[in-house]
């Protein structure tokens, strides 16, 4: 295939995907026309810093170069999907402005799609943009803090707060959020509510969400959400459409499971930030044909990585499981670890999720399973409930993916997982698992620079894992 032939030549590959992104913008521009582009830029103030100064090493080519060709293609393909998402949301928003709905990152969009709404994942921009320009968040973090919001709150919701206060987003007609994954994220929507004065629905996920009665309570919450959306938007839930959406999601999930199976092989076909980007397609577009197409492409490329390239990187010496989110402001960390130490991150907390299959045989069962998939969303399934949820999956992944080290990304703003640090170290020590805990801030290099992260990783790889630079 054309894509695969390009994958043999990485610089060309990077240029190909950059070109695809430009083409997506051009497609959007043509459909929107000059007035639409003007509106788009006016409503999306966050786009303006895109062309501004940013780190030289923050570029797509750095996520592609140095990796085996198919792995490079996986990273680039995932990023291209994200660009597609952004343009498509705003294209749809122009088409159906009255049906625009904001949602939080732990609420995947199946219900919105089935009701013909235009969902916009609020955290998508604060997640994606610092990967491209690490200084993107600083202005918005400062806006939030200068408006009196706390310096220690996670910088992801804080960036979203700053963006809202700075009118950087197109305003919502209504907002759907939840109590996941953390207090900071949950509380940030109180600011949004005050700012926009629009209806807000909050899904209330119980602490012990895996229990039967908790699942039943959450199902009732989902039903209340549907009724609320019907009232706010004057639309009806189309259960036939929901069935189609859920079946599309199941296809996507099937590809995902196959991908994870391949990921267990050594050498692994892929990893690092490419895994995380790829799986962002669940909150962004699960239940859509484009989301399924992405996972299908990733699976095909992963097969190619194993069968033709002999794995994602040239010399796989270490396999890591990453817990907590990767630094959004330093995605190149993974490429660097691969090249410097032969260490590939084979699975991570944002990627791994359980209980995602939806039985579509009837409405009741379908809604029940949909509620369950939402309650087992990535990160939330580990930050809610007792610490066994956090540790059991982690050690399962360590065994199941044949890892030889665990990386704990000790994000400054994550009070939830920070409170498990002592237990974490002791439990790893008892199991003789090498554990790297590195300090950083998810979205702000002013707390910890990329160089600071490199130094922490280098010390560990040299002193504990016996690597020599």
């Amino acid at each position, binding site marked *: 295939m054309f894509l695969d032939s390009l994958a043999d030549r990485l610089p060309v590959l990077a240029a190909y995907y950059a070109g695809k992104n430009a083409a997506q913008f051009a497609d959007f521009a043509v459909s929107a026309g000059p007035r639409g582009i003007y509106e788009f830029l006016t409503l999306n103030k966050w786009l303006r810093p895109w062309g501004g100064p940013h780190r030289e090493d923050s570029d797509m080519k750095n996520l592609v170069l140095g990796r085996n060709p198919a792995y490079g293609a996986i990273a680039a393909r995932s990023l291209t999907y994200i660009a597609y998402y952004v343009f498509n949301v705003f294209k749809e928003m122009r088409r159906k402005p009255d049906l625009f709905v904001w949602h939080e990152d732990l609420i995947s969009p199946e219900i919105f799609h089935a009701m013909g709404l235009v969902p916009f994942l609020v955290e998508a921009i604060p997640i994606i943009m610092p990967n491209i320009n690490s200084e993107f968040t600083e202005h918005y973090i400062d806006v939030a803090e200068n408006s009196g919001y706390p310096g220690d709150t996670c910088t992801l919701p804080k960036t979203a707060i700053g963006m809202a206060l700075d009118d950087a987003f197109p305003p919502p007609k209504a907002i759907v959020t939840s109590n996941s994954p953390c207090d900071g994220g949950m509380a940030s929507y109180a600011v949004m509510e005050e700012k926009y004065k629009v209806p807000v629905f909050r899904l209330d996920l119980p602490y012990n969400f895996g229990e039967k009665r908790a699942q039943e*309570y959450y199902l009732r919450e989902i039903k209340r959400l549907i009724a609320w959306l019907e009232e706010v938007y004057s639309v009806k839930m189309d259960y036939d459409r929901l069935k189609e959406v859920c079946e599309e999601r199941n296809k996507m999930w099937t590809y995902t499971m196959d991908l994870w199976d391949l990921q267990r092989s050594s050498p692994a076909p892929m990893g690092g930030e490419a895994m995380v980007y790829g799986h962002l397609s669940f909150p962004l577009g699960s239940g859509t044909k484009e989301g399924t197409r992405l996972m299908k492409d990733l699976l095909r490329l992963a097969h190619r990585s194993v069968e033709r390239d002999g794995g994602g990187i040239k010399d796989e010496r270490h396999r890591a499981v990453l817990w907590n989110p990767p630094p959004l402001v330093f995605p190149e960390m993974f490429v660097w670890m691969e090249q410097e130490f032969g260490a590939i991150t084979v699975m991570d907390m944002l990627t791994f999720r359980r209980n995602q299959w939806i039985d579509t045989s009837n409405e009741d069962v379908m809604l029940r399973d949909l509620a369950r998939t939402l309650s087992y969303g990535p990160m939330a399934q580990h930050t809610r409930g*007792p610490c066994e949820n956090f540790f059991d999956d982690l050690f399962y992944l360590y065994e199941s993916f044949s890892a030889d080290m665990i990386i704990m990304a000790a994000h400054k703003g994550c*009070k939830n997982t920070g*409170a498990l640090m002592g237990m974490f170290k002791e439990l790893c020590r008892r199991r003789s698992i090498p554990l790297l805990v590195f300090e950083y801030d998810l979205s702000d290099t002013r707390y910890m620079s990329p160089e600071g992260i490199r130094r922490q990783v280098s010390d560990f790889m040299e002193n504990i894992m016996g690597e020599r630079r």
Partner: protein
Amino acid sequence: MLNRKTEPLDHPFLNVVSGLNNEYISSARSGGKKAIGFFCSYVPRELLDAAGLVPYRMRAPNNTGTDVADTYLGQFNCSYTRCVLESILDDSLDFIDGYVFVASCDHLRRLYDNVRYLVKPDLCHILDLPHKTHDDAVDWYTEELHILRDNIEQSLGNKIRDDDIVGSIKRTNELRTVLSKIQELRKIDEPKLTGEEMHRIMVGINSTPADVAIEQLKEIYEKLEERDPPRGYRARLLIMGSQMDDPAYIAAMEEMGGLVVGDAFCEGSIQFAEMVDEDEEPLRALATRYVRKLSCPRMFEGFKERYGRIADAVSEYRADGVVIEPMKFCDTWNIDAQLFVNRFRDDHIEVLKLEREYMLSGVGQLRTRVQAFIEMMGK
């Protein structure tokens, strides 16, 4: 400055706060009762009382360092959880026989994990408090209380009959009634007691059995009626915010002339005084009262109502200004506090936000800021 010549309120109950343990708990324990530490204002102490247990609101204000706790918790966890864990680990709280948590915030949820991991007490229970207040949420919390009841019975062998719960609800309501009478003495032209004294009473209530506290409060009320009110204050303040159980904090404000007349924080009297319906099925009555009480910002959709109730309290207690005291690293309170600041300003209510640590520190700065606040109000 408050008039130092005002006779201090002299009653032993006000000294319960001096130590972690107290004579009432020691006496109850020597009589075979167990003391159960609870961590949040959403734990219905009535249920513990009905089980023949002594409910004790966990506190550890005198810690000067949290070295051991810091090896388990993170540097960005709130100092309340770090202080309490430290005191559990260094045996300062060794009179506590079990724990009841609420899944109220990230810090407390993880403190529960750490206590289970490090201490392994006979009773270590977490109540799954919903974030909403609709009927379904009340049903859910009612079930949670049934589960807690079963766990207490199984773990500690204390049987809890419905009649015991009804009796405990009546007892605790009686305590609330006496407390409300004392609160009335804070709303008048010349309040009969200082905020520091009220806070001492509240810590006493949260550290002793209800029947003990009722008798003590009745005595205190009689004394207050006869008492010359404190004079010389410049402004009346209402305090709101997160967990606080050290009267020295309020004393530092009052030394600057700000008489604290209303306390709408976790351990304050305003939310405590809300009654439980005695005619409803007892566990559901408890669930209703606790889920729908003056809420913590961790509850959803409560901002508007919470603001309304606090603004009403400002009028009722005739406060000149509000001090919001969120604890550092508490996301919910710190974000909520700023929303409150904005609303108060819109409504021309004077407000001061004072982020603080759990243990009293930076007293000089605290005094200066309160003094400046009072002057800013033109008092």
